[in-house]
């Protein structure tokens, strides 16, 4: 692997375990009877995110926002169109074969659906043992010990090793999936909607498991989810995606309690609350319509077409990220052109009084 001196100099001071810089991912558009030839869909459009040691970054967004693609780019499951992926300060963007295999040991993934992510013809012991054997090659009985230790770590017993996935409940299957990811002793765990398919009572059990594993093994976690109340619970930091871009990021409590981007505010206000009426947030911001198509993205701010606070520059000029009081950054013209807010979070009621 070759690294430029500049990157090497930075290695020592890199604050991130895993980092994506200006990530871009384009997919070939559908080449059907009716679509133009060579049309490209920009699923991820200039995303910069970093995972800090032992912390969880929650990546939220709606379907089509590109959040899962970012997770896959960071893990090198997909090749970037542009940008860089850095693991512990090393550029792994273009690594192949053996080098990539070493990198992969350090970053593992847990998928949404434990019914389709586990091979039904393999026993739990084989499922958990496979990634351990591949990445760490333990000898003799060491593999069995590792399997037992991993199963215990995720709250299963060594007896489960002989079972098949269809003999397990949904919660137990997801524990097996987590055990598979944990086996190679990764630094980073990417959880893509890892609790979304589970029942409520099982969901909180798995969230507790993730919190415990993080503490025990110092895991760094990227938690990709559409569910804000879950993201809020497990994340130290949050990045909000819309149409392939991160529109806001920062410490979880600042982003959730004092959003600075109108989209974040709308997203948060749309989340229903399981509380008696008197304790629920009063105002809902109802967005009209759907996000624009990623194959014909808007020139300016991706949210401009639905934003209740949009003004003159929003449709044409793409906003830059600026820092927000309380931590993090936001890409919104209200913060720069004008400037209306200049680094302040959105005041309560700003969006609801602006319109109507």
């Amino acid at each position: 692997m070759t690294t430029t001196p500049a990157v090497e100099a930075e290695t020592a001071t890199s604050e991130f375990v895993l980092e994506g810089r200006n990530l871009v991912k384009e997919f070939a558009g559908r080449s059907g009877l009716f679509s133009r030839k060579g049309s490209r869909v920009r699923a991820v459009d200039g995303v910069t995110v970093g995972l800090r040691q032992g912390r969880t970054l929650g990546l939220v967004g709606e379907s089509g926002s590109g959040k899962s693609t970012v997770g896959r780019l960071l893990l090198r499951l997909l090749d970037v169109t542009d940008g860089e992926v850095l693991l512990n300060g090393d550029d792994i963007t273009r690594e192949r074969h053996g080098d990539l295999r070493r990198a992969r040991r350090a970053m593992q993934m847990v998928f949404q659906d434990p019914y389709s992510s586990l091979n039904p013809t393999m026993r739990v012991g084989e499922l958990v043992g496979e990634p351990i054997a591949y990445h760490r090659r333990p000898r003799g009985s060491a593999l069995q010990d590792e399997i037992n230790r991993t199963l215990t770590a995720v709250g299963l017993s060594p007896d489960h090793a002989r079972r098949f996935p269809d003999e397990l409940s949904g919660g137990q299957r997801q524990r097996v999936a987590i055990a598979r990811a944990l086996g190679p002793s990764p630094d980073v765990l990417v959880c893509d909607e890892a609790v979304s398919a589970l029942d409520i009572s099982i969901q909180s059990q798995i969230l507790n498991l993730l919190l415990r594993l993080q503490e025990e093994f110092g895991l760094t976690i990227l938690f990709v989810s559409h569910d804000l109340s879950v993201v809020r619970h497990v994340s130290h930091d949050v990045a909000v995606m819309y149409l392939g871009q991160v529109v806001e990021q920062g410490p979880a409590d600042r982003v959730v309690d004092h959003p600075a981007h109108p989209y974040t505010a709308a997203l948060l206000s749309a989340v229903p609350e399981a509380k008696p009426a008197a304790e629920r947030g009063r105002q809902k911001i109802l967005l009209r319509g759907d996000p624009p198509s990623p194959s014909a993205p808007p020139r300016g701010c991706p949210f401009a077409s639905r934003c209740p606070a949009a003004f003159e520059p929003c449709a044409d000029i793409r906003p830059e990220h600026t820092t927000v009081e309380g931590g993090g950054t936001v890409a919104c013209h209200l913060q720069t052109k004008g400037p209306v807010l200049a680094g302040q979070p959105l005041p309560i009621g700003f969006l609801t009084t602006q319109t109507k």
Partner: protein
Amino acid sequence: MTTTATPGIEAPPIGRQPLLRVEDFSLDLAPSGEFVPVLSDINLSVRSGEVVGLVGESGSGKSTLALSLIGLVPKKISKLRSGRITLGDTEITAGSRRALQSVRGSKVGMIFQEPMTALDPAYRVGDQVAEAIRRHTGVSRAEARRQAIENFKLVEMSDAERRADAYPHELSGGLRQRVCIALAISCRPQLLIADEPTTALDVTTQAQILDLLRRLRDELGMAIILISHDLAVIAEFCDRVMVMYAGQIVEESPIDPFFIQPRHPYSSALLQSLPENQPPLQTLTVLPGSPPPLGLQVPGCRFAARCAHVQHGRCDVTPIDLTSRPPRAFRCVRANELSLPGAAR
């Protein structure tokens, strides 16, 4: 974009006579050969204009109950053990195929979780709605199309004339669900059954669809049964909630008292386990164990194995009856001794 204060505009009066009655309804299903009890002693009544939530985890029987309400559980794999279901003056449980077909659509409409599978991919959405209208009212083609477009406008589809000519795959998830709602309400049913209608949708789309359903309830005065696993959606949308567990209703309550002070340990444990009701990054209070498999048979309380308040020899001996304390009801022998926490701070 608009803002709405919850609760929305003034609701229509709730009728006095029950529109839908489920009495001592028990149903066995044979999903793989052998019959097992899936629903036991369901009692439920819904009045016109009322919004009732049915909440439960997987295997609780909530979707089977929903299908039973419109007679859509296949007779081949089901056996009615006891009870009956009546909608208006039609007995669903005794209805012939023809009678049920005329009830569906005209008296009761249904929307499902996945709008793509509920629509025919080979027909334009406008034609699908028009066909349903023609079938139930026998109006002309042109009139049916006019009414279909009117329904699209009612469900707030912008550009309704043009979108009527679209195929389902050309529409977004939110628009498809709007088509399904337009289809379900096209003959102005008195009851709309919505089975996880927003589960497959994004949260901002969910808010739009729930807002729409609320408005339609107010404008058309229909009753809604909302089936959901999501207690937050139930909290914001329903007047009354029924909690199901292992094929039984374990608690019934008006919405606010339920969230302030649930009476069944299962309800309380569910509310307590929600991440949104607990401080971030701390270990969550959890409900241990998993939902029981379909057709679970135990001598006493079906929740006893997971209950934090179980008293052996008392809870797990004989079947537990539903204790009725109108407007609430609960299936727990210890309910009066327990003060269970809810979702209120």
